[in-house]
């Protein structure tokens, strides 16, 4: 298993007040994402556990893109990956952020 952690500073906190949410399932080609509103409003941390080693660059790019689009300030995001493709990861991250905003 490979563990990756990315920390970002956001321009603003994520809207809404949902304290936590989970989306997705750990399965082949899929992943689960746990989002928790526990960080300072301008901070976002994404921690990933994946059985597929060597894709740190791809994860870094996907996470950076998500942070830029969603501005998920305040969130600690934990991912259990089952070997999801980058587009699936992006989709789930945005789904998760929407659950937190509601």
């Amino acid at each position, binding site marked *: 298993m490979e563990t990756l952690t990315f920390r970002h500073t956001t321009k603003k906190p994520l809207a809404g007040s949902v304290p*936590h949410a989970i989306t997705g399932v*750990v399965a082949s080609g899929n992943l689960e994402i746990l989002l928790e509103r526990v960080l300072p409003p301008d901070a976002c941390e994404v921690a990933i*556990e994946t059985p597929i080693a060597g894709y740190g660059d791809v994860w870094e790019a996907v996470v950076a893109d998500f942070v830029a689009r969603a501005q998920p300030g305040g969130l600690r995001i*934990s991912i*259990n990956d089952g070997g999801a493709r980058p587009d699936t990861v992006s989709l789930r991250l945005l789904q998760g952020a929407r659950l937190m905003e509601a």
Partner: protein
Amino acid sequence: MAGNRAASIDPDSLSWYEATARQRVLALTDPGSFREFLPPTERRMSPHLPLFDLPRAFDDGIVVGRARLDGAPILIAAQEGRFMGGAFGEVHGAKLVGLLRAALELKPKAVLILFDTGGVRLQEANAGETAIAETMRAIVDARAAGIPVIGLIGGRAGCYGGGGLIAGTCSRLAVSEGGRISVSGPEVIETNKGAEEFDSRDRALVWRTMGGKHRRLTGGADAFCADTVSAFRKAALALVGRAPAFDLQTLEAEQARLEARIDQFGDCRDAADVWARLGVNDPESVPAMDTGAFDETVARSPEADHDAR
């Protein structure tokens, strides 16, 4: 709460088979009533899967908690069939055991178990097997205390291995077409006994032999549901009200029921032979029947309804 968000899912249109364990729980129970025990934020994950370089799940593939069903307090557990085939690992099994033990104290109106499992998780086989035995003992304790334990079966992993034995321990079972109940899975039989004994690629054979319709017609399940969450909710509500007692009389009746089944159908090679002997006019048509037509067929089956479980 995240839970309240997902409660907006429409139970009438949500496919049980396609839904995740979490979606099933939220759409089955009264809106906003579900409270999870050891939720994902507590990260009580398998201590063993990392040794096998396998990913873990925050809930170890089972969602457990309390909720209300038509206003009445219940306890509920739902297995996630897509994570490790919904199989029983150490944490997964212990969550179900803990929930059933809690029932003795809390005296809920019922405990619902939403099965979706291939059986024991091989990477944690001894823990899973032992947890299944503990679960069966805890179900018996709950039933003997007058708490109905209702199993709902319609997920993609079916209800196999030790899961099948746990299902057989429940007070009542509801099953959909896709809900297979069996001990040995098709692949296991084929691997051990050959394709002449069971061709696991013959999906029609799998469904005929282990599927919801066969189980319902022969009394292996007490309700047959369309593949929607609302159908399972309706079935669960009906079954809670007519759970058999756990006592000698019930088990004597079950003994007689199962002996009679073997006497009557023990020489049948195929499920269609069993259905013909049950008086089904056109047994070959059973797999294609819609829920309404199938309900009428069930009503004519002498084996389908009983209190012998």
